[in-house]
């Protein structure tokens, strides 16, 4: 295809780079899913071949669904992830609105303070957090995880959302005030719908580390009732001297919910509804 702006060779380079990146990114995922459908021997003998009729096996899935409470783990992961995203988006957006909309003393300082968490990993405070959770009797509850993940996700959320909220037209908010909308109505009904793409971005960035996290579930909620999927998958490593079929099947299953959530949010990522609001 002829193109006026980009030469064919450059276009080819761009595509090669993207294809290489895609292969690298997808390789472990494909490998995991492929091998989860193979017999144990075949996983070791030829890990790179796709499952053939002779090597096809669902043993892993039988083990995963039979042993342990895997649906329970799924449920835990989903509850923790969804609740955390909800809290991060709600409180993050509220803080961002206040920072971008209202003039008050220490506004800039507060913004910097809230963004500090982007640079300092929350895991540094693990011992403190554990002591606190013990004192609050929250160990082995999903609440403890939601609290920690909310704290972990807020800095980035506040940072991204406050930048976006600055771009929402002042006139629109003024019009709302003249029409008698409360500050809450302005926030929920005028501003939030306009920053939906940014909210989706934040949701995706928040969701993935939470879903994949092993650290905090292991420390704060390792009990059978509160195990998350990633932690549940680990049990196959210890319990059955590494049942690779089960581990790979568990991981393959764990990919899907997060994929669904991602697809849901990414549609929002692309769709902007600001068009027509101003000019």
């Amino acid at each position, binding site marked *: 295809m002829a193109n006026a702006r980009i030469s064919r060779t450059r276009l080819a380079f761009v595509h090669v780079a993207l294809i290489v990146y895609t292969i690298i990114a997808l390789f472990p995922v494909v490998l995991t899913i492929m091998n989860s459908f193979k017999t144990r021997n075949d996983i070791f003998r030829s890990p790179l071949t796709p499952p053939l009729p002779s090597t096809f096996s669902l043993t892993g899935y039988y083990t995963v669904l039979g042993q342990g409470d895997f649906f329970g783990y799924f449920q835990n992961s989903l509850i923790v992830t969804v609740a955390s995203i909800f809290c991060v988006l709600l409180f993050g957006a509220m803080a961002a609105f206040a920072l971008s909309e209202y003039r008050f003393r220490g506004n800039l300082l507060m913004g910097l303070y809230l963004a500090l968490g982007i640079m300092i990993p929350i895991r540094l405070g693990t011992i403190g957090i554990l002591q606190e959770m013990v004192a609050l009797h929250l160990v082995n509850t999903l609440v403890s995880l939601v609290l920690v993940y909310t704290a972990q996700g807020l800095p980035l959320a506040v940072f991204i959302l406050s930048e976006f909220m600055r771009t929402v037209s002042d*006139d629109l908010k*003024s019009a709302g005030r003249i029409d008698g*909308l409360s500050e809450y109505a302005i926030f929920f009904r005028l501003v939030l719908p306009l920053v939906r793409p940014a909210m989706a971005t934040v949701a995706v960035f928040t969701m993935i580390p939470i879903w994949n996290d092993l650290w905090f579930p292991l420390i704060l909620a390792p009990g059978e009732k509160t195990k998350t999927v990633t932690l549940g998958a680990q049990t196959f490593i210890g319990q059955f001297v590494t049942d690779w079929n089960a581990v790979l099947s568990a991981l393959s299953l764990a990919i899907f919910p997060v994929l669904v959530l991602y697809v849901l949010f990414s549609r929002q990522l692309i769709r902007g509804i*600001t068009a027509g609001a101003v000019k």
Partner: protein
Amino acid sequence: MGNLQLKSIRKAYGTHEVLKGIDLDVKDGEFVIFVGPSGCGKSTLLRTIAGLEDITSGAVVIDGQDVSVTPPAKRGIAMVFQSYALYPHLTVRDNMGLGLKQAGNPKSLIDERVKVASGLLSLDPYLERRPAELSGGQRQRVAIGRAIVREPKLFLFDEPLSNLDAALRVQTRLEIAALHRRLKATMIYVTHDQVEAMTLADKIVVLNAGQIEQVGSPMELYNKPANLFVAGFIGSPQMNLIDADRLGLSGAKTIGIRPEHVGLSRTEGEWRGVITHVEHLGADTIVYLDTEKAGFITVRLFGEHDFKPDEAVFATPDHGREHRFSSDGKALSVTP
């Protein structure tokens, strides 16, 4: 009813004073326009009337009631913004009705008022559309409709035509003028475009650096500018301001003469000069020339003239139409 008094309004951000004591009286049914260069505080003043900005000191009085600390929705005002500021997720009908709905009015009343406003602005075919599906001119009409529906005591317009293209601007300007005649409502309008100000206003308020320079009807400002700032700001092209010493005149520091009050001749006149540039506009010809006595001046001739750059000509001011200003920039009475 809708009269407005501003009593020594001051507004400061920290130590930076944006409004330095504004006093103004607006009578019921008046069309008042705030003009001034950008940054003069005219939009801030409008926003303090609306209640979108708190005032540092002074009082805003609408219909005899001090509303200085009343929230915007309870002041009985409606505002039209430069960027239209329509709610993107609502239809035209809901955009117009939202204010009334928030105030708890019955649906029948809202429907009634929306119907009247949309008829007035010929928006009937678009009532179920969203703002994104409308053109710029239609959006601004919806924004005006949203203001009409509230039946406010005061209409506030914040540069409503600036986002429209030239043809639409003229058309919408006429619509606003017609609207004012029909509704007989009090309107306050902010613009930096003096043509809008001259054509629409009953009363123009010229603002500069947070202070009122002059208040008056368009022709008062044109014929009797109170000071150098107003003289330079009202009228296009700008008034020629000439140092009185150069002309050998005493009793004034600066002499002002409007470009349309200077005659041009090839053969004789008071100020000899050379044409530097000519603009042919059809209805007018604007000639820029460098004179020996008065320096650079602009002359506006009516109709078409075939003056060319580098031509030597004579300019003669229309005596009796000069404006005299003292050294502090204030206008002196016309007779010397």
